[in-house]
């Protein structure tokens, strides 16, 4: 009798554990599928010939036919939209790091009145839905002549990217001990030299990552781009406008053109994005 009990208890624990394990694996598979299946289907259809995209049955295996992509690239306006996208994204990158990094440094190094409120406020810029702001912004931009310009759109994208730039750089600067800067001061540096010679080399990879992230935010943003530009559309805005009325294979090619650079960028800087959310920096 005792023997049965002794055999029974560990078995129950083991069953529970393996059930938990099953649930865990199932959840992981589900989440992976949620992210990967659309990307996979996108890839398959992008790399298939137009006939295969519309045809049936599907093979599920790409035939590595580049005719859709070629057609998409030579499609009137794509090259210009791509250039606009890059231009706006680069401007956004420069502006958001130029403004965000000093703010991050100040937050990590100085105590000033309203510091907490400021941190809150930085995040608050994301609390207003863009559709709400779009109309007044459009009016304002038309009045100031910023409408349909790369810099005008870059300013809006900068507002979207700044919370991330500030938070990422804040955590980067906080990771650098103040003692290192103080040591540099005692060794003959003024504040700026110490920053340049000690802090900057140490945060540069992180700053680059945060710049790439700002780039990606601008690259993917469609609403403001669609509202605030007409002639100088960025790629997402251009696609929204044109792909509605395009054949299916073109939609896939356009989608891939948007997704792949963003995926590559995010993958390159994933380590710093994890650090930003407080997950151990691995």
């Amino acid at each position, binding site marked *: 009798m005792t023997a049965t009990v002794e055999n029974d208890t560990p078995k129950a624990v083991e069953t529970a554990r393996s059930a938990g394990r099953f649930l865990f694996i199932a959840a992981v598979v589900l989440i992976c599928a949620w992210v990967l299946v659309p990307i996979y289907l996108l890839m398959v259809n992008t790399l298939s010939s137009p006939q295969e995209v519309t045809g049936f049955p599907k093979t599920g295996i790409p035939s590595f036919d580049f005719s859709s992509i070629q057609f998409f690239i030579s499609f009137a306006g794509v090259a210009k939209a791509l250039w606009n996208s890059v231009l706006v994204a680069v401007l956004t990158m420069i502006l958001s790091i130029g403004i965000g990094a000093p703010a991050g440094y100040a937050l990590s190094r100085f105590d000033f009145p309203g510091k907490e409120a400021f941190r809150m406020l930085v995040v608050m810029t994301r609390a207003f839905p863009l559709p709400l702001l779009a109309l007044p912004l459009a009016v304002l931009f038309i009045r100031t002549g910023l409408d349909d310009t790369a810099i005008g759109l870059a300013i809006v994208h900068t507002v979207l990217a700044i919370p991330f730039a500030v938070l990422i750089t804040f955590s980067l600067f906080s990771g650098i*001990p103040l*003692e*290192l800067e*103080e*040591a*540099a*001061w*005692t*060794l*003959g*540096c*003024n504040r700026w*030299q110490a920053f340049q*010679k*000690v802090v900057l*080399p*140490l945060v540069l990879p992180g700053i680059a990552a945060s710049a790439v992230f700002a780039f990606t935010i601008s690259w993917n943003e469609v609403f403001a781009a669609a509202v605030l530009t007409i002639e100088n559309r960025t790629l997402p805005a251009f696609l929204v406008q044109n792909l509605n009325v395009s054949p299916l294979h073109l939609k896939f090619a356009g989608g891939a053109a948007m997704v792949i650079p963003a995926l590559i960028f995010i993958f390159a800087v994933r380590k710093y994005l994890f650090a930003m959310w407080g997950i151990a920096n691995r």
Partner: protein
Amino acid sequence: MAEIVIKNVAKSFGSFQALHSIDLTISDQEFMVLLGASGCGKTTLLRIVAGLETPSQGEVWIGGRRVDKLPPRERGIAMVFQNYAVFPHLTVFENIAFGLRMKKLPQQEIDRRVNRTAELMHIEQLLKRYSGQLSGGQRQRVAVARALAMEPDVILMDEPLSNLDALLRLEMRAELKGVLDASKTTTIYVTHDQVEAMSLADRISVMNGGKIVQAASPVEVYRNPAARFVGSFIGNPPMNFLPARRGSNGQWQVAGLEVAGPASGDALEFAIRPEDLTVSPDGFAAVVRVVEPLGAHTLVTAEVGGKPFRAVLDSDLAVSPGDELRLSPKPDRVRWFDPESTKAV
């Protein structure tokens, strides 16, 4: 010549008064240790001398020059930090050369100084490494070498050994003393470790609650504490204290014993170091509570007049808890404190 004069320096952080009107003169080439428990203001005082903190009032002079308004780089100081602050993105060589490059010295002079200080600190084989590839003790050596290479008038050290393990600390302590003696710089060294302070210092400034309680040579601080705090803080085990009342014919009543003492006053505190007690029939009646044999000596914790009372006795003496002992103080080692002001009488 780099005499450091601290005049009436005070510092407050908001409503917290970290330093109260400090006056201290550290003569040229002196090794001054600031000793105190954490939060006593010793690091704040060091940082004010370094220029990393601005005093709320008062003046700091180094080598006849008023420096309290100058940034750290113009004060002729070098500092060794508690966490070493070795730059992780530079090699050991470049770390040591950092300040020399800021001074725009010729490359030849930089090489000479880096190699000399590296040799002095026994890190010449590490010059190509990065700080991530060094142990704590090696980082400490780099930090000291970096400070020495500056050939400063003043070296400031903020608990430089506190992050090392005990054995390494002992070794580095002796080495630091030799190197700093040879360098002939004025040194201010902050520590909470009294053994470190005693062994390194020409003079110790004992700090408590943002004030300097006593600034004197290690032996003087140990033998003649200027205040009750110093006696209880320095020495392990610390001084014993017993209340004393004015008795008949000018003697003092201490735990049932008549002791000769100061002529004035009604109530004082009697103090004696545990090693200045001997077992003899005319001493204090003490009931032994704990016996700790330490090899060379035996530490006995007893009770005298209801107060804990420690004695360091010969290890041949056979005592066990519950025994009654007679402990008598060496007359020339007895000290007296005013219970009101806690100052020595």
